[in-house]
């Protein structure tokens, strides 16, 4: 995967992210991946619940969504050239996601060097103004 998509076309790596076994198991849908940006969504599902009393999705599932989305953003940056792996990822949980609503993640690779991609992401439910969580991460960049 050496070509980088620009313009309207998604990065060719999008299909790779759509087929990741764990992302498939979580029900993650990869909606966009190009120019250092990625958008993914994860519909509410009973099996992802962390608090059975309220039906709120477990933070771990949100982490998995954020990690996947951040990785896709890093890989699709014009300065990247191949695969990527997470070096570190920090998630801040602002509030519980509303039960029954899809969680959407948007990630942006805001800086890249020859070795490291710096990415930030936000997770939202149906309320666009109050994020569920934010993330910042560092990812490996494969040598050219």
């Amino acid at each position, binding site marked *: 995967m050496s070509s980088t998509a620009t313009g309207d076309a998604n990065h060719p790596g999008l299909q790779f992210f759509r087929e990741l076994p764990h992302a498939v198991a979580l029900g993650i849908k990869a909606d966009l991946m190009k120019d250092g940006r990625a958008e993914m969504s994860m519909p509410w599902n009973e099996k992802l619940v962390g608090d059975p009393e309220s039906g709120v999705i477990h933070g771990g599932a949100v982490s998995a969504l954020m*990690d996947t989305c951040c990785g896709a953003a890093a890989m699709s940056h014009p300065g990247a050239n191949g695969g990527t792996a997470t070096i*570190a990822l920090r998630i801040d949980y602002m509030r519980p996601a509303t039960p029954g609503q899809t969680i959407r993640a948007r990630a942006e690779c805001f800086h890249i060097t020859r070795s490291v991609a710096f990415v930030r992401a936000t997770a939202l439910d149906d309320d666009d103004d109050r994020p569920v969580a934010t993330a910042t991460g560092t990812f490996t960049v494969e040598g050219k």
Partner: protein
Amino acid sequence: MAEQPRRPRPEPVQVVKQRRDAALTALVEGVPYIRFLGISFDRRGDELTGVLAYQDALIGNPMLPALHGGATAAFMEVTAIISLSWSMLWPEIESGTTLAETLVAGQMPRLPKTIDFTVDYLRTGLPRDAYARAKINRSGRRYASVHVEAWQDNRDRAFAQATGHFLMPRRDG
């Protein structure tokens, strides 16, 4: 020889173990996402070790193949929350109050809420079972700080570590 004050006879070991294990099982199996990931807990006294049983659905990169970083993060977060809950509930379970019975009856206690969680990926997660242990570095009335290490074949070669902060549930009834 001075007369020793008589202490009550200790409970039979099977009774103690049964109560502890039943409470732990109820705590873990009450959470759908923990069942989804296939995580169980090994208990030695009050010490817990999380066990992530390998399944193909945990794979992130099928080409390597490697565990998904999100699955690793979730495993460590689950281990932190269960270990923190267990340490919070332990005195009540030990005192033989009704807590163990209410847990087994399906009434879940309020669990700590994650404030932030930072994962440090040290090595590729291999397609096999993983283990994790949490160390509670601080546990106050409202906030707790927990460090987690996860390893696979070799305890001294962690493949990931994490630190998280948690908001403790109010315990005033």
